[in-house]
Every structure is written in structure tokens, then in C-alpha cells.
């Protein structure tokens, strides 16, 4: 939860938009600088902020920047409603409200000999990007790092220039697939769980970080378990309707868990019984 007492935790701070880059048809990456504090905005990979477009509304958005370089603050936002459309329309100089960071973090897989398997679907790559930055920065003794990323179409993929740079590196195996493509696409076509059977996995030393639509999570977890990964080695980011972000309002309740306070990153073992339950 954000520093300070209960009142401070729900008061937004002002941030000015430095840059706004279009990622695809409806998704934008914004760089923000704080106006109310000179301190860098420290966060852990997997955490989120509540972004407030004044007069339009407030929404939970994962931080998509590098935790080792927290200034500027980076968010990747998809325009799907009034608040997100207003945030995505913000240009340099515009001011947004920010409160956070909130929520849990991806597990630290930087230990020597631990393999990290990062599985992202669609916009789910954004909350995983901070973890990828951290994993790419780990020492040479770190284990294998694999990114499996699935999108709707080649045009909808996020961070394409960065994906290209990562592909050129030897310390990460990047595999991208899309649901459908034109015949000019030279990459893979198919769903992201299908990639899991094609990569090398040592179940005894692998930690999986998974983020994407819930249907994709279910298929992905099933494929990981089939490859021998114990449920304790799988971590998922859940999406629910977060409003207060401090565990008070109950909008994001997921069984006994509050996604904003106890998640959004959960060990799969903790939430597995809730997967597939109706009305949870």
C-alpha cells in the first residue's frame, strides 16, 4: 500500500504527462513526472496505481516501467471507457492524479539457478514488463529467462521495438504468437498456451509469472501443470473491478481475497480453488 496513513493513501498526487506514445490502435504508454514530490516514485514489479483523469474518473493501471529507473513513471493504458479514454488522450503538459503504488509484487526470481518463465497475453505484457526489466538485469548466474507472449494480431502487439531488441539478446528466449494474421506475418499463429509445450522447462527450478485475460490464465495454468510445474511455482495477476485500492470498498473481492490489497499478483496455490467458480 502507498506510504502514509489511511487518508494519504487515497489522496491522489499530481503528475504531469511528459510523453504519450501510441502502442497500437487503442493502447498508449504515458510517461509521467511528479509535481508534488521530488522523490522518485519507487515501486515493485507487478504493483499498480490508481490513475485519475480529472472530471472523467479513476482507474487501476499497472506500472509498466523499469523499477530500477522509476522516473519517469510509466503506465500503459488501453482506452476502453470514459476514464481510460481521457487518460489516453492526455498530452504533454496535461496533469493526471496518481495514487499508489498498491498491491503485491511478482516474486523475485533473481536467485541464481532459478528459471523464470513469463507468460503474457494481450495487455498482460504491461504489468509483466517491470519484472522482465528486473530479470534481464540480474547477474550472469541467473537461470534461463523465457517470455511467451500472445496477442490478437500482429498489429495489436505491445512494445514491438523492445521485443525486437530482446529477441536479439542471448539471455532471454522470446516467443510471440498471435491469434490470426495476414499471410505477410512470418511469426507464429496460435494461442499462447500452445507455446508452453515447445519450450524447455525444468519444473524443479522454474517460476512462472502469468498475466492476461482470465480464460488465457486457465489454459496457461493447465499447460504449465501438464509440464510438471507445481502450483506453488505459478504466480498469476488477477483482474477485478478495483475502486478504492485499499481493501475498503469490496468491489474487487475475489472470494475471501481483495484483489487490490492481497493481489493483484497471487500465488496460484492461494487462488486455485476460486478459478472457474461462477460469480466469483
Amino acid at each position, binding site marked *: 500500500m502507498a506510504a502514509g496513513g489511511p487518508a494519504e493513501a487515497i489522496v491522489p498526487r499530481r503528475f504531469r504527462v511528459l510523453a504519450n506514445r501510441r502502442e497500437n490502435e487503442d493502447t498508449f504508454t504515458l510517461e509521467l513526472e511528479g509535481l508534488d514530490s521530488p522523490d522518485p516514485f519507487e515501486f515493485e514489479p507487478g504493483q499498480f496505481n490508481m490513475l485519475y483523469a480529472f472530471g472523467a474518473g479513476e482507474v487501476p493501471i499497472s506500472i509498466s516501467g523499469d523499477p530500477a529507473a522509476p522516473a519517469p513513471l510509466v503506465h500503459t493504458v488501453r482506452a*476502453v471507457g*470514459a476514464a481510460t479514454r481521457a487518460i489516453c488522450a492526455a498530452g504533454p503538459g496535461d496533469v493526471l492524479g496518481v495514487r499508489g503504488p498498491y498491491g503485491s509484487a511478482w516474486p523475485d526470481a533473481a536467485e541464481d539457478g532459478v528459471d523464470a518463465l513469463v507468460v503474457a497475453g494481450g495487455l498482460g505484457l504491461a504489468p509483466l514488463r517491470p519484472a522482465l526489466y528486473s530479470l534481464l538485469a540480474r547477474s550472469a548466474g541467473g537461470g534461463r529467462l523465457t517470455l511467451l507472449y500472445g496477442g490478437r494480431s500482429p498489429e495489436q502487439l505491445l512494445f514491438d521495438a523492445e521485443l525486437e531488441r530482446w529477441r536479439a539478446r542471448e539471455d532471454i528466449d522470446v516467443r510471440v504468437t498471435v491469434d490470426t*494474421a495476414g499471410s505477410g506475418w512470418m511469426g507464429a499463429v496460435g494461442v499462447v498456451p500452445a507455446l508452453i509445450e*515447445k519450450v524447455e522447462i525444468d519444473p524443479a527450478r522454474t517460476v512462472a509469472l502469468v498475466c492476461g485475460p482470465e*480464460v*488465457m490464465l486457465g489454459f496457461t495454468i493447465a499447460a504449465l501443470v501438464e509440464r510438471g510445474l507445481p502450483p506453488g511455482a505459478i504466480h498469476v495477476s488477477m483482474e477485478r473491478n478495483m475502486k478504492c485500492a485499499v481493501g475498503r470498498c469490496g468491489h474487487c473481492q475475489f472470494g475471501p481475497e481483495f484483489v487490490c490489497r492481497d493481489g493483484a499478483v497471487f500465488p496460484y496455490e492461494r487462488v486455485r480453488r476460486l478459478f472457474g467458480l461462477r460469480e466469483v
Partner: protein
Amino acid sequence: MKTIADLLPEIPLFEGLAAEQLELLAGCGRNVVAEPGEYLFREGTTADTFFALRHGAVGIEISVPGREPLVVQTLHPGEVAGWSWIFPAQPWSFSGRAIERTRAVSFDGACLRGKCEEDHELGYELMRRVAIVMAERLRFTRMQLLDIYGRGEAA
């Protein structure tokens, strides 16, 4: 030089089959090579073959009037293309085009059906394995149909 029977155990569909069963299947197979852009099979033509990929990649395409073909799946080494051969005189529902230089074992469908009729144990085992591939493709196709990366809840 490796014979077709030597190559088959490298393909997961045939893993664990007895040597004599592999010999029977190998009798229906031949090596083929497709250059990038070349079609291994075409939508609408008679599906009298079945391909097991050894190297390269193949895009499974469907034609859409008035626009370029849509690729709905890519297949990679170890995967198989086509099950219309199971029934005689069926047309291909999709086209298969090599994305990169591709080597595959191409099986004659009529020959395979004949072997399965002669040896029901082999036929059952082959159908069971093909059914597993079909079930997985159906599962993933349903996931694609859901368009899970489409617009989420408005906010």
C-alpha cells in the same frame, strides 16, 4: 542415410509405436521439401495426404474473399497437418503454405487408410493419437474464437 522409418520416431505422433508398425506407416510416406511461399496443400483440393513436419514452419491459411488469406495457425517441427485423409475424397478445409524452407514426411491418405483397415490395432492407435491432436486443436480454436484479447470492461 535415414529411411522414413528412422525419421518417424522423431515425430511425437509416432513416439512409442512398435518397429513393425513404423515400418508399415513408413511404406506410405515420402520426404518432401517446400520452399518459402510454396503450398504443401490447397484449400478445396482433395485431401489425399497428411504431413508430419521435420524442419521449418507451415502457415495454415483460409481464404477470405476480397482480402489476403488469413493465417489461423502455424505448425512447427514435430507437428502434423491434415486429418481429412481419414475419410476418402474429402477436400482440404485450409491451405498449408511454407513460411520458411520446410521438410516434411508426406503420407498417402489412401495407403494409410488401407494399412489401418488391414491392421486394426495400428488403425486404432493411429486414430487415438490423431484424435488427441484434433482435441487439442479444437480446444485452442475455441480459445481463439473467444477473442479474449478483445475489449475488456469499460472503465
